[in-house]
């Protein structure tokens, strides 16, 4: 039980502090806000994109209302989240896009993180242009023709070149290398955060302006701004091994869940539930759209989905 764990740690720490000896392992510390007033608490990591918020919203709703847990959420970027997970500051990551280095370090070598199966959603990263632009220039969806249209994508920030808009620096991206290795007349501009990127895309779309952006599926924004993927040289196993020499498209990644190893062993019902959590791209999009576009609170959105999909989530609880 996490609660007993906290108690033991507390006792040990008090002992240690008062006697001035003994070891204090800070990789075994829970959040100070966890398990307050005797409630059983699960801490979930929310990544900054809305799809991840949708996973967490539904998991949180079910944990709170069906299993009687208290749920804390913390927003952490992808790689720091692995670190936080290994230290037990969060108990679970529900959507991981593939981090081989971290998997090796924490799952295989240190064994502080345990795999918890797939989320059921397959992710794909790519370059996208708005569909209204494709109707005007049907051949724009091949990367070989991108240079021809570079002047369409020019902005104040990209100077004389076309602008390829990237999002948050925390996301997996090879775009700088791609632009260089494919010898494209483009400049990668980082929006700096997904929020900024989405805001900019919507402004462009409202005016039917051309834009080329790094984007990924599943993503609720496709429902609001239809976009078409630009074909890059096809992905082959290992073609992205050397980050500096990448010249191929991004792979299709089945998204994974991970749990803190201690939580995996002693997390009881909550851990079992999170391991069984498995839904489809449509489900996730439905919830994400409610959060980000209809501006429902994550809790309201989760309730709406839960009310309509009893058959899906009942099996997670058994």
């Amino acid at each position: 039980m996490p609660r007993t764990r906290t108690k033991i740690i507390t006792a040990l720490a008090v002992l240690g502090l008062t006697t001035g000896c003994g070891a204090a392992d800070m990789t075994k510390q829970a959040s100070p806000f966890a398990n307050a007033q005797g409630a059983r608490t699960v801490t979930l990591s929310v990544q900054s994109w809305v799809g991840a918020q949708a996973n967490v919203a539904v998991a949180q709703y079910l944990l709170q209302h069906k299993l009687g847990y208290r749920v804390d959420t913390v927003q952490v970027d992808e790689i720091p989240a692995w670190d936080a997970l290994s230290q037990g500051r969060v108990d679970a990551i529900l959507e991981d896009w593939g981090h081989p280095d971290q998997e090796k370090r924490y799952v295989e070598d240190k064994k502080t993180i345990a795999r918890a199966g797939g989320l059921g959603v397959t992710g794909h990263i790519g370059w996208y242009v708005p569909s209204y632009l494709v109707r005007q220039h049907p051949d724009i969806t091949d990367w070989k023709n991108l240079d021809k249209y570079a002047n369409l994508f020019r902005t104040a920030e990209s100077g004389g070149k076309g602008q390829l808009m990237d999002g948050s620096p925390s996301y997996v991206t090879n775009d700088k290398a791609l632009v260089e290795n494919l010898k494209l007349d483009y400049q990668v501009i980082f929006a700096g955060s997904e929020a900024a990127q989405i805001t900019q895309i919507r402004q462009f779309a409202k005016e039917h302006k051309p834009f080329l952006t790094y984007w990924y599926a599943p993503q609720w924004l496709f429902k609001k701004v239809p976009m078409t993927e630009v074909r890059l040289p096809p992905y082959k196993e290992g073609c992205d091994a050397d980050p500096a020499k990448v010249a191929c498209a991004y792979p299709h990644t089945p998204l994974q869940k991970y749990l803190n190893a201690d939580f995996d062993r002693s997390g009881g019902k909550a851990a079992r539930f999170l391991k069984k959590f498995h839904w489809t791209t449509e489900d996730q999009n439905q919830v994400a759209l409610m959060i980000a576009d209809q501006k429902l609170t994550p809790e309201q959105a989760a309730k709406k989905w839960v009310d309509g999909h009893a058959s899906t989530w009942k099996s997670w609880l058994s």
Partner: protein
Amino acid sequence: MATLTATPDRVGLPGLLRHRAVGKLALLAVAAAVLVPLADAHWASGSWPQALTVDLSKPLTGVSDWIIDNRDSHPLFLYFFGYISNAVVLSVRAVYLVLLAAGWAGVTAAAGLLAWRVAGVRLALGTAAALLACGLLGMWVPTMQTLALMVVAVLVSVVLGVLLGLAAGLSDRTFRALRPVLDTMQVLPAFAYLLPVVLVFGIGVPAAVLATVVYAAPPMARLTALGLRGADHEVLEAVESLGTTARQRLFTARLPLARRELLLGLNQTIMMALSMAVIASVIGAGGLGDRVYQALASVDVGAALAAGLPIVLLAVVLDRVTGAAGEGLRPGGRAGWAYAAAATVAVAVAARLAGGLDWPGSWTVQIAEPVNRAVDWMTAHLYSGVPYVGGTADWAGHFTTWILDPLRAGLQWLPWWSVLLVVAALAWLIGTWRTALTAVLAMAATGVLGVWKPSLDTLSQVLAAVAVTLVLGVATGIAAARSDRFERLLRPVLDVFQTMPQFVYLIPVVALFGVGRAPAAVAAVVYALPAVVRITTQGLRQVDPAALESARSLGASSVQQLRQVQLPLARPALLLAVNQGVVLVLAVVIIGGLVGGGALGYDVVFGLAQGDLATGLVAGAAIVCLGLMLDRVTQPTERRAQKGA
């Protein structure tokens, strides 16, 4: 820095000073004439020479990996950092549990009564109302989490600050050593503090608390030292003649005499800690900051505001209460405190018996939706195609192409040694040879770290934003100084903008100005304006009325009075405004990395997000250097002589 170089001419410095300025410049020119050809022959001009850079990414990555691999086994972590981390977790948890146990009614009563004891009835009502508003916004639990974190961070900052301040206040040598360090720490952007603590403690509450302490302790230390040193010597001698020991003198005379400074330090520490509360959410602080941060991910300005408002309310209340406490304690003595404590306990117990510990879910007001609708309307109607003036997106485009681009290209085109020369000249003209040397070394350090170009990019954004801030800020300040009513109207607006977490207005700024350097500059202007307006207004108002009266009697028009009497006499205040403007703008331009500002800010965000601490730390160090350089270049010598903040 155009404004700066122009000031001396307009004001007309006394002959002696001008001579000194010419002398300094001549000396610098001679030094340049000797050194530049040498440097040029050796390393060539243009961008910072490759030969003079040190690549730190390898060793830093090594350190970061070593820490992660050894964090659970190495004695340094087990027996030192582990305890610090544990102590933070335990104390935050203890405070949090107490706050939860008191329930919303108990906390509100306690805060209200505390405010009543130290600051009077009006502020007590305000405090209670502010806390209830936090609950009404549906943010009770996050507010308590932030409060728990703040209480611990502020307490540690104050203890640390007072200890350092005592050391510096009682020993001249410590004072000389600490003063520049503390002065400098106060001008550094909060963002730069995040990485080193994350490196050691990982993401989470301990890192957040420690970053906050590092950020918030310096003002306390600084003001404690200044307060102790500023004590009236005659009083001290009188006390000494009574045959007191050094310790008695400290506690009965020196510390009580320094009370104003101590409370001012407490006030500043609380303010800085609160402003850090949101920024620290990037490294897992939780609480209100995290809500703001999460809301931004779904581009939900309304929700971000709902979480941002409690921070503003807390800040305004704490500012007023600690400010009022500085004026003097209310009468009533111990009995008053006892009543207050008893009332708090009574309310808490009553609430507990009534089963109302948690904020009732039905008592919340959803402000998110109307706010979002307003923001949508604004962006829909202002973004582009506004007749005659053009939309905000067009402005941003023009600002980027006509101002930011040429400025950046110009700075990056300049040979590296000439940038250093300009820095040296500016810093020396306004300060001493020491400040000039610090500034030059700081600037050179960005080159040595291998981030010369991004640093100049950031610098160009800072310069452009500062120019805009000063034009707007000084104009508004003049207006406020001339009309009492305008100033009264302005005051709450300034309060809100000064305490509103910068994250909250990053998104509307993107919606209005697109992605890029322009929105970062705009956000910086919005953030820095209040301070500039305030300092300008104060400076103008403090101008000697006699001087104004005599000008008026000579028949000077009001414009003439302003130009020839008020502005020149308010020169120190204006210079301080420039300095503050630069420091604040830099802080936000860095955060602008989150909205496409690029350059150093982006590197820090990248370092935090990717766990690539090498990139982040190098960028962080460069930001520190840039901050140091900008402060020295704009810091008038008078400030050193001045007492207090």
